[in-house]
């Protein structure tokens, strides 16, 4: 398998831009990434575009607007992990030797407020079974029950991420909030208050991947760009195993502690409590592919769709023990200056969540961190980084990068 490098990244800020079209946002991110990579028209052999709400041929419209078509353009939908899915396809097309250089981008323009998802049947919407924050709230309540997580922890996740969002000009919310303010924001679904939930919004992000030059060659890259190159060690996408009632697959029912047939896991019978989630499956696979473990990570961007989701991700990604999320967070390990800073971009809680773009937005942040180019948000000496997105499907994407 060939090694894959990140040659360039670009962003259109995340936020709300009534006067900017979805296509225009994509153009901004794509042009920035191509420019940084030094790749011009004809310089990439395929393009993958992540979007969940973009509609027919969204990626084609972006590349059509700048006259860069003719190559295969694949639009990819995988819910919140759409960008992660696009990245996986792009990376494997290079690793397998099919292409030399590939463009990956994610775009989204979503209405304000609770997400309306075609995932649900009309009767589910009509009878109140499609309230996404309610599913998040039930998951949060379970985490409070099993992992020593308190409502104060949830508020402090928001305080942590928002304090980083202040430093990120691509974020939507750029003001500090206090624990008290978070807890006194409107109660959406107990235990989740409004500010503990990320906002669906708009934005775009793009990444240019290229095959790493074979040993000794420099493939025409300048000395500077070589020195700041970032390797993509793994880009994995996984779905869920059947069983858990509150998994992101959002089933209407699940199984109690009884045994579940874990299809895809050697057909073995495992207990519901130990059944790996889509995120855990993706993380295990990514660690194995990358040849690193959680202990090697220096900086992480993880899915903070809601504050509890970030803490649950700590466990699923193996950053702490199962059941240890509350205690781990309380040590301050994931704060700025801690042992393993998480969501130094401000996270989705600061940036908002444009579904198709969010996963690549994380990758943009981590590439900047690994290049030492993250400005006021820089985690000193960051060498190995992990990004994680998960959402309805279930879809879970895990990416591991090395500077």
């Amino acid at each position, binding site marked *: 398998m060939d090694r894959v490098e990140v040659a360039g990244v670009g962003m259109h800020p995340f936020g709300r831009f009534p006067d900017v079209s979805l296509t225009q946002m994509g153009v901004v991110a794509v042009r920035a990434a191509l420019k940084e990579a030094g790749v011009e028209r004809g310089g990439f052999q395929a393009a993958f575009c992540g979007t969940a709400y973009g509609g027919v041929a969204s990626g084609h419209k972006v590349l059509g607007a700048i006259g860069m078509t003719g190559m295969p353009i694949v639009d990819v939908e995988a819910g919140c992990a759409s960008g992660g899915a696009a990245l996986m396809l792009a990376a494997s097309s290079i690793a397998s030797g099919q292409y030399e250089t590939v463009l990956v981008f994610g775009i989204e323009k979503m209405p304000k407020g*609770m997400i309306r998802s075609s995932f649900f049947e009309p009767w589910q919407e009509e009878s109140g079974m499609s309230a996404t924050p309610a599913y998040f709230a039930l998951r949060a309540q379970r985490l409070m029950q099993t992992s020593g997580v308190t409502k104060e922890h949830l508020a402090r996740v928001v305080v942590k991420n928002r304090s980083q969002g202040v430093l990120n000009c691509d974020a939507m919310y750029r003001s500090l909030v206090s624990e008290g303010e978070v807890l006194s924001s409107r109660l959406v*679904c107990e235990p989740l208050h409004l500010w503990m939930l990320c906002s669906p919004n708009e934005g775009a992000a793009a990444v240019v991947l290229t095959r790493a030059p074979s040993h000794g060659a420099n493939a025409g890259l300048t000395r500077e760009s070589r020195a700041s190159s970032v390797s993509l060690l793994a880009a994995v996408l996984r779905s869920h195993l059947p069983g858990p009632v509150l998994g992101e697959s959002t089933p209407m*029912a699940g199984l109690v*502690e009884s045994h579940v*047939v874990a299809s895809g896991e050697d057909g073995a019978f495992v207990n519901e409590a130990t059944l790996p989630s889509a995120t855990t499956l993706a993380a295990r696979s990514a660690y194995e592919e990358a040849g690193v473990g959680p202990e090697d990570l220096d900086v992480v961007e993880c899915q903070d769709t809601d504050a509890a989701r970030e803490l649950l991700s700590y466990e699923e990604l193996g950053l702490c023990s199962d059941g240890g999320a509350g205690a781990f967070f309380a040590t301050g390990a994931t704060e700025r200056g801690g042992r393993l800073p998480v969501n130094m971009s401000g996270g989705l809680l600061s940036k908002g969540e444009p579904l198709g773009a969010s996963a690549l937005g994380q990758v943009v942040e981590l590439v900047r961190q690994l290049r030492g180019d993250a400005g006021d948000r820089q985690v000193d000496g960051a060498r190995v980084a992990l990004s994680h997105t998960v959402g309805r499907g279930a879809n879970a994407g895990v990416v591991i990068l090395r500077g």
Partner: protein
Amino acid sequence: MTGVSSEGPLVGKLAQRAIAVTAGLFEMGDPPRLLASSCNECGQPHFPRQETCPYCSADGCTDIELSNNGTLWAWTAVTSAPPGYKGAVPYGFGVVELPEGIRIVTRLTESDPARLSYGEPVHLEIVPVYQDEDGRDVVTFAFAADASDAPVQGGE
């Protein structure tokens, strides 16, 4: 364990003019029933009914009726109407565990989370969600706490 909601809010009073929000999920009888099936291969129960087992992929499942009584496993309340929702807010929402070894995502008749507790006994009811253009009650399944078996829950 049956008979808990034989005087439930709807069965009697509204059943004749009530229609289910969708077919195949429950029976509005007295007592009401959730319609599930059980896999002939692995024995796991699943809801709603289908021919192929969602857990082991085997074909061939047998219809079963789930218990109407269970315990509360997770709960919250929805305070603002999600897109497409035709009923009133707030409303309770949660997960109930039934003796067959299944956990059901369900509406709850109690919309104040502070009045519910983990593991508390609950039972099945059929409740109105909204009225259709012909003035008929459109109903769905919900679970109510045994302890607060009030005659009619306001706001629903």
